[in-house]
């Protein structure tokens, strides 16, 4: 898989896919998308970079071990249910705040954090599996 064209293109492709995955993650509340599909796109981005430039390059680039990412994601998702405790509503009830930052109204919710957690779990798990499989091919 190390044709010049693919290797030259892969970094741009990876960057684009990473950006797109975040876009998909954030639009996911009312439109198609969300943490799961965003995480899958991000994991594919890692896989493509791994195929073109080798797995060690990916591992250096993402700093953390994929399992760390997955663990952190699960932690965030789990915690996102807990603010409900202080609002006297059941676990995982969505809570919203609408702060205005620099003139833009932001719609922040515990659901968003849940989705970010899901994104990281999927990225960590599928990315980890993909990288391990690619390592075996060498």
């Amino acid at each position, binding site marked *: 898989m190390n044709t010049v064209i693919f290797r030259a293109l892969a970094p741009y492709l990876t960057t684009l896919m990473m950006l797109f995955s975040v876009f998909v993650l954030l639009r996911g509340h009312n439109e198609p998308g969300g943490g799961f599909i965003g995480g899958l796109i991000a994991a594919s981005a890692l896989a493509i970079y791994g195929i073109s430039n080798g797995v060690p390059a990916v591992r250096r680039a993402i700093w953390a071990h994929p399992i*760390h990412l997955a*663990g952190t994601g699960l932690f965030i998702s789990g915690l996102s249910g807990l603010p409900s405790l202080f609002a006297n509503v059941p676990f995982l009830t969505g809570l919203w705040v609408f702060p205005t930052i620099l003139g833009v109204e932001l719609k922040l919710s515990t659901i968003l954090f849940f989705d970010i957690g899901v994104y990281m779990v999927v990225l960590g798990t599928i990315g980890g599996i993909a990288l391990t499989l690619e390592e075996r091919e060498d």
Partner: protein
Amino acid sequence: MADETTSSYVDLSVAYVDATVQAADYLVVLPVIGPLIMSAFCLMLRRQQHVQPWIAGITLGAVFFGNIALALRIMESGPVFMAMGRWLPPFGISFNADALSVLMTLTASLVSLVCVFYSAKSVDGDGRRYGFYPFLLMLTAGVSGAFLTADLFNLYVWFEVLLISSFGLIVLGNSHAQLDGAVKYAFLNLVATTLFLIGIGYTYGLFGTLNMADLTLRIAESDGLPLGTVALLFIFAFAMKAAAFPLNFWLPASYHTPNIVTSALFAALLTKVGIYALLRVAGMLLPGSFDTFQEVLIWVAALTSLLGAAGALASTDIRKVLGFLVLSGIGAMFVGIAVVSPDGLRGAVLYAVHSILVMAALYLAAGVIGRMTGSFDLHSVGGLYRAHPFFAALFLILVFAISGLPPFSGFWPKVILVRSSMDAGEGWLTAAYLVSSFIAMIAIGRVWLFAFWRDDLDGTRIAITPLTRDEAQAYITPIAILVAVIVGIGLIADPAVHMASAAAIGIIDPSAYITSVSPVGP
């Protein structure tokens, strides 16, 4: 808070549960979310292995005390209910803890907690690096979730959670025997889970709902639907999970392979989740299914308990003896189920609690035997009474407890089971059960005789490696705690019997369960 204003399309107020939730209500989700979040936290701290036992211990300790508080509340004021994300019950996923749920969760959390103590010494660096504690916490979360959920599909999800963490635990260490055991375990459990899923599919096709309270109502109203098929699928799947004869082959083939703490957890928890699901789904949701298949269940009960006991007598590896004793215990629980009476169910529930405690303690004790004599083989162990009299006494109590002798925890369920099967006129079943528990007593008594009583082997003294001070603390304390509870239940049986009765009544007459789920009425 401001939900309704953000979404302009739908009037969400009709889809939401209005009742405010107190912090105390969170006790019903604590046994699941606590271990789940902390399991993730342990994953994040993958490199700081020395803090993981502390995290696991503190989490499970909190869960244990939370469960005690939950149990007290349920015994006082009935089932506790929480609808996740406020979505109304038939659509949203909800948790509902009644006496049966909380009794099982409480016992399970105690066993997980003492297993953490034990693991402090017995799980080495490799096991920890590959995630023993995250898996342990995840397993506890899955088991508690299965006990607490009020949704059939969610029950399946928790089965998957506990199954996947148990796959992780069973291969930790990566030896040949472990992989061999893991394949059998994984394959047969996946078959059972698939059957369960098919059963859920049929149920949803028939009733269009999977909420347990809702289902109970609709099934009571239904007429002429093929409920027997669905019930049989569920009974088959859960009997396989519970390792009842003739679906038991995965258990003796796999339980002796992993680290002894893992074996203890599995023996204590996994098969009982199957029993719980059987009681909840076949017993409560599909009333009459035990009646319909009584003939089969009686055979299953008799053969499971007899073959389990016989297998225990025929094995020479202590861990295999214990594996077969788990089977024999499952047979005893099926005796309670097969007689189809409130008393029988009460006996089954009480036996499940007893079995969780005793099997965990016995496996942990077997670990100590293996550690001190360097072997699990009955042909070469011995000399432990001389080396550690206190441990020998603890083990002897466990021998009496599992044989159902007074004044230990095995006595009361045995009395109830024998009496209920006599009352039901199933004299043969009573006889089979009594014979099996007699054989089981010989099998486990033989372990005690060989491992503790005997000093010499062919004239030479058996070499013992004494426990270090740290090891004695880490190994003996958890066993002593479990033995204390076992003796406690035996001497002061009232609270446990009372809860088991409440659990049995909850299975037969789920009206309290239903009203707690549907505060707005059916």
